[in-house]
């Protein structure tokens, strides 16, 4: 771009025309790119650091949290896997997360069919209500659920957690399955019906296989929404039944030991494996 062009474009004040000389321009561009690159690298480092820091910390030999860690040991993992409290919380959360995955995925997928394909009265209201648990602050929902569950002695119980976590997981299922259904060509289902299949056969033989990646993603979201959930779990846990999120929250607040780093590393690895699997399943299908 010549000096005249630059002036014509109006983007450079006349005094900056000196930068329009090719050598200086190239130099200032390089300098600018370098600065921008450094800034972006700093932001990416900021994003990644807190997740990655827990891995080396879980290997530290010291009894307290220190960074950089000293020595390498797996003893904190063995403490985690041998501690009855941690194991009880882990199994409790795992059971709830698996049950939540089943209930939220099934009810959510059924409702998504009705929302996308059905004559559902008050469709927008149902949709808004289903997304509600994502919008309403989790602390409000936690307090509300405690008030409801406490007189029924459902706090710290499997059914109590199942209801709470199913409600929290439903928005993820609705959003994901609705999107998958909207991408799926309904004439294929019509073809199946014309060939003599009934509604149920058409769904299981034609619709479900086609939306399966979306349903699988929804199931993983539901699992993680339950397993990683801590705010509502904080309120509806009690001495008898405690989720891993509640147990971690207590330990971070009261006794900060490297065991939490070991637990965190296990949880991060689980999340990344599951989400990586979803990513692979969805990357394989052609996307527009």
């Amino acid at each position, binding site marked *: 771009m010549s000096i005249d062009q630059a002036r014509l474009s109006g983007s450079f004040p006349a005094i900056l025309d000196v930068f329009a000389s090719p050598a200086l321009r190239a130099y200032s561009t390089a300098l600018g790119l370098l600065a921008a690159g450094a800034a972006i690298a700093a932001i990416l480092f900021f994003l990644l650091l807190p997740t990655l820091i827990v891995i080396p910390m879980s290997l530290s030999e010291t009894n307290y949290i220190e*960074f950089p860690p000293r020595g390498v040991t797996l003893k904190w993992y063995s403490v985690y896997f041998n501690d009855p409290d941690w194991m009880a919380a882990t199994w409790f959360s795992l059971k709830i997360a698996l049950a939540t995955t089943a209930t939220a995925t099934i009810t959510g997928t059924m409702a998504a069919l*009705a929302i996308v394909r059905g004559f*559902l009265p008050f469709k927008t209201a149902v949709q808004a209500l289903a997304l509600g648990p994502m919008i309403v*602050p989790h*602390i*409000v929902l936690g307090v509300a659920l405690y008030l409801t569950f406490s007189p029924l002695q459902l706090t710290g119980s499997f059914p109590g957690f199942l209801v709470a976590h199913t*409600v929290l997981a*439903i928005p993820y299922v609705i959003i994901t399955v609705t999107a998958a259904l909207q991408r799926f060509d309904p004439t294929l289902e019509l073809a199946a019906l014309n060939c003599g299949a009934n509604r149920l056969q058409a769904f299981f033989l034609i619709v479900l296989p086609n939306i399966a990646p979306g349903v699988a993603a929804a199931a993983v979201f539901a699992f993680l929404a339950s397993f990683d959930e801590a705010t509502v779990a904080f309120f509806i846990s009690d001495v008898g039944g405690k989720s891993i999120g509640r147990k971690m929250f207590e330990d971070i607040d009261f006794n900060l030991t490297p065991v939490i780093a070991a637990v965190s590393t296990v949880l991060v690895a689980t999340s990344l494996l599951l989400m990586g699997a979803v990513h692979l399943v969805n990357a394989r299908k052609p996307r527009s």
Partner: protein
Amino acid sequence: MTNSRPQAPPRPLSFWKSGFSSARFYSLPTSIALAAPLIAALAIGFLYPVLKLVALSFSGGTLTQYRRIVTEPLHLSVLLSTIEVALVVTVASLLFGFPVAYLMARLRKGLAMIVAACVFIPLWTSVLIRSYAWVVLLQRNGMINKLLTDTGATDGPLKLIYTQGAVILAMTHVLMPFMILPIYSALRALPTDYVRAARNLGAGPARAFTAVTLPLSLPGIFAGSVMCFVLALGFYITPALVGGPGSMLMATLIGQQTTVLLDWPFAAALSTVLLAVTLLFVLLFRRTLSLSKGLNSVY
């Protein structure tokens, strides 16, 4: 993504009257049966508890609890500082998140994957773990204080944790992916030809950015900002772990009322106020808030 077809039936009533069975539409009874379990779950686990909470805040048929919020300067200032922190976090997420989203949308595939990994890995990590990491990083003898004293930038360790700044920093970290992803999908939908056309017509890079890229990415910016702001309003875990008594937010105040002071009616009133503020912002910006857009770019 782009080939989504219109879903509305042309004339639903005539379909219904003729009793014609179309593959596109389930009948009314089938639709209701399909949605019934969801509605039942939401009624039991969401609607009824929230209504019960709101009712408790008016217990005795008076506004006593609400009067306490308005008349006590402390409670009012907590509400205002919650909104302020949410705003600061949203603006910080936008400022730092936009360049990342831009890079993700414009880089070659391999490099874009690396940037995407930097966004997705924290997103898939539990909020609890990330707050824990910030506690460790910001501690008195933590990594950041070590770095500061070892390089001689400060004489002694600074008080970083249990401050308002720590809350803002950690919350920005947690919420940034919710800003980046909608902006990324807006930028990716923007054809590169538009920018090239602007450049060919004589616009400099800055002008092309402000005249073409920025306005066309506004839907993503709005969606991300509303999402960030609404989520920030109700944050509990992060402020509870990295914040101190001087950095009380609505959620931590509610937590304190319920777990320490056991003042449930007052906690219910505070919750109702927080809920009302959140819903107000959601309703105000519902056109720009695209939940599905944000989530569908997650995988």
